[in-house]
């Protein structure tokens, strides 16, 4: 009999849907770091991110019957994680839900010099810039740039249409390029 580590994701999910806790814990082990790092950067709190990661997986197990194979499992997890994080941020009132003008023209960021200063200071500045973004911009940048979600997946996780995904990612990038020194 094959060990759980040898099973592919769909087999693990099928077993977990039948209530196999070991199969689901294998899925947790595979996805925990992606979910955690997304939540750390979204909430800016290691403790909150740790708790939310656990909550995300417990909720996923509880609602596993609701998962449809049309969506990637990781995308579904991101949606749960994101909703949990927004609930927490609302409760803590650390997030202001500003109306984003999705249809407004996106201003071109001033093109900077072509050198990439990949230093610790530069990365700290970028991290600080990320933290200053509105949370709706921050989440889309994280999911696109770091987690590599497609526009369709972003639309699914964030509950947006494709046009809005396209304009929001552009606005988030504009803001980020404006915050970071060249």
């Amino acid at each position: 009999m094959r060990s759980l580590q040898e099973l592919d994701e769909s087999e693990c999910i099928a077993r977990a849907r039948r209530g196999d806790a070991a199969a689901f814990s294998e899925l947790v082990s595979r996805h925990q770091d992606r979910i955690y790092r997304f939540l750390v950067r979204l909430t800016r709190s290691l403790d909150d991110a740790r708790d939310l990661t656990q909550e995300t997986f417990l909720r996923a197990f509880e609602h596993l019957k609701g998962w449809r194979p049309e969506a990637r499992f990781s995308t579904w997890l991101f949606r749960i994680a994101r909703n949990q994080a927004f609930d927490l941020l609302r409760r803590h009132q650390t997030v202001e839900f500003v109306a984003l003008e999705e249809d407004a023209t996106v201003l071109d960021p001033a093109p900077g010099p072509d050198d990439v200063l990949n230093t610790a200071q530069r990365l700290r500045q970028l991290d600080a810039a990320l933290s200053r973004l509105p949370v709706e911009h921050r989440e889309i940048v994280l999911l696109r740039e770091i987690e590599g979600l497609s526009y369709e997946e972003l639309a699914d996780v964030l509950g947006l249409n494709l046009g809005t995904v396209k304009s929001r990612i552009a606005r988030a990038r504009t803001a980020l390029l404006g915050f970071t020194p060249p």
Partner: protein
Amino acid sequence: MNCPPFEELSAYADQMLAPAAKERLASHVQACVGCQAQLQALRDLQLQLHALPQPHLGFDLGARLRDQLQTAGERKRAPRAPTWGLSGWLPAGLAAAAMASGVWLGVLLVGGSVAGTTQAGVVRVFDPVPPGGLCVAVELCRATKGMP
């Protein structure tokens, strides 16, 4: 072709444009230094975001949750408890007893049959209304009438 809006360049950098639009934009970028610089800024941003330190949870959450998941999994699989068992009837019985005692206490307070008898007894000894006086409470007068 004029310079495209930044939104288009951003989608182009993500390779999310339709083939025709992608081709049009590619030929423009080849000849436009400004758009080339913007595309480069987008690519640099992407590289820098990837270079950010990536936090790790630092322990195996799957292993840690296994017992909790096991219990939840068993609960999912377990057949529904029969409603005719003791555990099914016990809360209902307690609720009925509580309700009955509540009704009984309520009757005592508002002057039902039990309360009425007691109150009539009290009235018979301490009734301030002299015989032949006006009756201020019909129930009390009726009670005293029947008394020896």
